[in-house]
């Protein structure tokens, strides 16, 4: 078992061998600071056709990365959206060219708090500027330019990916022919912020965190980070789904141990998820990305509110929510639909009935995947015809 420091060192070597765009254009961040000459790590799947009309941009969620499908070369695990993206899948990489970039503030090769601050020649830690969803999206626009894609066939993403997508459509109204925001919201609710704060406080309460300076010592506040991840995992499942999956089942034992070990399967599950996470994710990145989500409020950016945000929208939308998602509820998603309707946009909406909660978009949920595929395929036919005219 390698030490954590060793693991990070080894991860960093691997991170040198992935696709990165050096974004030279200065990016003025919402916080007022400017970043330039920064790396944006990305991955692509499938082939861009000659007409360049088959490109689909995927935005990843809080703990996701650019490795959407296949095997993630850094973790050697399956890509996070292998259920939906790949050859013959709903987003068929035999047919479409799929692009995904690691968000700035992340830790999978794009500029983030564990990178070297050119001013101090030391890792940023908390000197890293606070970033927003809008900053993330603007950084990714450079990638489309680099790949020579004027208009995407479709852009999609779930959870924070959906928020990036809404921002993308509001900021660049003519960059996507169609868009599928999934299980997201146009602004973080008090409950959303509270859950993120819980995750941040768990990290900050770990003495190893040391005001974010752990990066200088090549260690990781793994206890705090694991708890932060556990909070997330609870919010991704529905009450019913959790009850069905775990109930009161005990973890490989006949009776209670009368101790604080993981007696229950649900405890064991949370611990496993928590401690698996610390091996692939940077604690400070969690702070920065959750902050970006909390600051997200699309209607605040536009004087006329959400309706104004979607004014003159030519993009064709499909909003999808999941009935048992209590993190980004059906109502949150419907509010987006209402705003799009009010602005006269072309919008479809479907609520998938499932017990699997927010996580549904990552799972093999047939009704969801069929709807996604049906929409994208029909949009491709339309887009091709439109381009021909």
């Amino acid at each position, binding site marked *: 078992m390698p030490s954590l420091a060793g693991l990070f060192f080894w991860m960093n070597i691997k991170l040198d061998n992935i696709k990165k765009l050096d974004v030279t254009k200065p990016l003025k961040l919402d916080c007022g600071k400017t970043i330039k000459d920064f790396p944006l790590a990305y991955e692509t799947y499938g082939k861009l056709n000659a007409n360049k009309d088959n490109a689909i941009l995927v935005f990843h969620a809080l703990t996701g990365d650019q490795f959407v499908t296949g095997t993630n070369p850094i973790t050697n695990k399956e890509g996070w959206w292998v259920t939906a993206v790949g050859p013959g899948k709903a987003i068929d990489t035999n047919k479409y060219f799929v692009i995904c970039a690691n968000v700035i503030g992340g830790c999978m090769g794009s500029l983030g708090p564990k990178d070297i601050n050119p001013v101090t020649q030391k890792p940023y830690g908390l000197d890293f500027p606070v970033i927003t969803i809008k900053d993330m999206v603007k950084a990714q626009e450079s990638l489309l330019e680099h790949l020579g894609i004027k208009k995407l066939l479709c852009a999609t993403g779930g959870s924070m990916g959906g928020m990036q997508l809404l921002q993308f459509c509001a900021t660049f109204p003519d960059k996507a022919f169609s868009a599928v925001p999934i299980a997201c919201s146009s602004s973080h609710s008090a409950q959303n912020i509270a859950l993120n704060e819980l995750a941040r406080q768990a990290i900050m309460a770990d003495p190893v965190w040391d005001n974010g300076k752990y990066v200088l010592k090549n260690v990781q506040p793994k206890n705090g980070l694991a708890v932060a991840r556990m909070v997330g995992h609870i919010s991704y499942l529905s009450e019913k789904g959790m009850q069905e999956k775990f109930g009161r089942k005990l973890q490989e034992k006949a009776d209670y141990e009368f101790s604080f070990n993981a007696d229950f399967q649900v405890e064991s599950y949370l611990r496993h998820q928590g401690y698996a996470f610390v091996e692939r994710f940077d604690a400070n990145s969690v702070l920065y990305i959750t902050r970006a989500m909390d600051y997200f409020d699309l209607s605040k950016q536009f004087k006329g509110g959400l309706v104004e945000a979607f004014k003159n929208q030519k993009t064709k939308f499909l909003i999808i929510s999941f009935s048992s998602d209590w993190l980004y509820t059906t109502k949150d998603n419907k509010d987006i639909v209402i705003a799009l309707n009010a602005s006269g946009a072309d919008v479809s909406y479907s609520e998938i009935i499932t017990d699997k909660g927010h996580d549904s978009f990552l799972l093999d949920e047939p009704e969801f995947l069929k709807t996604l595929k*049906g929409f994208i395929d029909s949009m491709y036919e339309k887009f091709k015809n439109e381009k021909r005219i």
Partner: protein
Amino acid sequence: MKNLKMKKEFKVIADLLPNNTRVLDIGCGDGSLMHLLKIEKNIEVRGLELNQDNVKECIYKGLPVIQGNAETELHQFPDKSFDYVVLSQTLQAFYEPEKVLKNLLRIGKSVIISIPNFGYWKVRTKLLLFGEMPVTKTLPNTWYNTPNLHMCTIKDLFNFCDEKNIIIKKVVGVNENKTSLIRKSNLEIKNLFSKVGIFLIS
């Protein structure tokens, strides 16, 4: 069979709609009417549909559809945001048809409503002669499983519009493949011989 019967009604509705308009189809089903309007009249269509499979079907066809319940979710559409709102054979199934109708008139500059006519002679005879709730091609369900809560006749809806100061622009009666214009002068007879009534109101 349902589809065949529907097609005549859809053709009548399509004929009532001018080209290049914006139309909201409430209870759009699998999108057959929306598809027809889009292809033949270049109409910008939107649909509202409750049933998940129907929603999926519309999405496969590339037709914009919102999954939702017309009884409770019409508030999401702004005032006069559509040239026409179409409601095909569902008015009678709402808990509060009057409220729904009011909403349709708010959303659309004009509204097209079709109803299965409870005044059709076969429906009347069934009740009058046999003393049983009528089951016909247009009203295929029995009393205990019908979704229809507020059955009405063409005459009823005619009078209702008059009472509520709703402007009736045109009423078309449909019987099998025949259609005819309904006016106040021929209302009694058409109410007896039309299976379906289609109202254009505002």
